[in-house]
């Protein structure tokens, strides 16, 4: 069984890779490379895979999940300029992919235990662009 909890945060960022030329940055990021930054209302969906506890009937108490998401992600990301205020985005481009992976790394130690595991992290940068991250496993052909 997979259960999902949704939270929102708002943050600003610049998508600009220091190793790329100005032209390459434009080709990859377009106006998102504007050095002054811009922001999004991000939506985060965190999915856990597991079986309901035979006594409580729950995979994980959603109140507890909500507290973990607030403590490990929202309190750090919400109303921040990611490049300047949230490591590792002082060295990594805060693309939706890198944000999803960073959130996975922050959450995974708190959510995977016993028969329960973090299944996926979905980050919506806008309603029209979202990324699912399934952990470090290599891509199958």
């Amino acid at each position, binding site marked *: 069984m997979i259960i999902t909890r949704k939270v929102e945060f708002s943050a600003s960022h610049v*998508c600009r*890779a220091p*190793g*790329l030329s100005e032209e390459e940055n434009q*080709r*990859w*990021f*377009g106006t998102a490379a504007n050095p002054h930054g811009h922001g999004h209302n991000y939506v985060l969906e965190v999915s856990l895979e597991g079986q309901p506890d035979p006594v409580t009937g729950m995979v994980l108490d959603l109140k507890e999940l909500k507290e973990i998401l607030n403590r490990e992600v929202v309190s750090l990301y919400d109303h921040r300029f990611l490049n300047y205020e949230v490591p590792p985005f002082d060295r*990594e*481009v*805060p*693309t*939706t*992919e*890198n944000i*999803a*992976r960073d959130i996975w790394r922050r959450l995974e130690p708190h959510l995977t235990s016993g028969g329960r595991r973090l299944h996926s992290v979905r980050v919506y940068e806008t*309603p*029209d*662009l*979202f*990324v*699912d*991250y*399934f*952990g470090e*496993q*290599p*891509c*199958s052909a």
Partner: protein
Amino acid sequence: MFRVTRRYRFAASHRLHAPPLSEEENRRIYGKCNNPFGHGHNYVLEVSARGPADERTGCAANTREMDELVAREVLAPFANRNLNTEAAAFAGAVVPTSENLGIEICRRLKARWHEAFPGNWPKLEKVRIAETARNIFEIGADEIA
């Protein structure tokens, strides 16, 4: 592994009518969708690519390339068109149901994918098309020969 999904919108008209069937059978099977003058939908299309993130850019797919591919292969031929009379794929016996429209979109994207994404990654994973908010169709790229 990442899956990057981009959402697009387009409006088009169609009529559901299978030429091998009688008028009566067509009316019975398709109901209002068989109206001879056709009708339209606001389609919502999701295109998903999967792959690893590029070390330098932090991107698993260049969404600008995806946008250009979808503009060329999907929006140009289908947006604000009559699918029955203007789309070659539906000129014959193929009925422009959303199943068949989704298959045609997936086929068109898969056929041109390597022009937009010449490397091993990202791969086209699936398309998902909503004809209305209540009717949704998903086709994996692996289902397309």
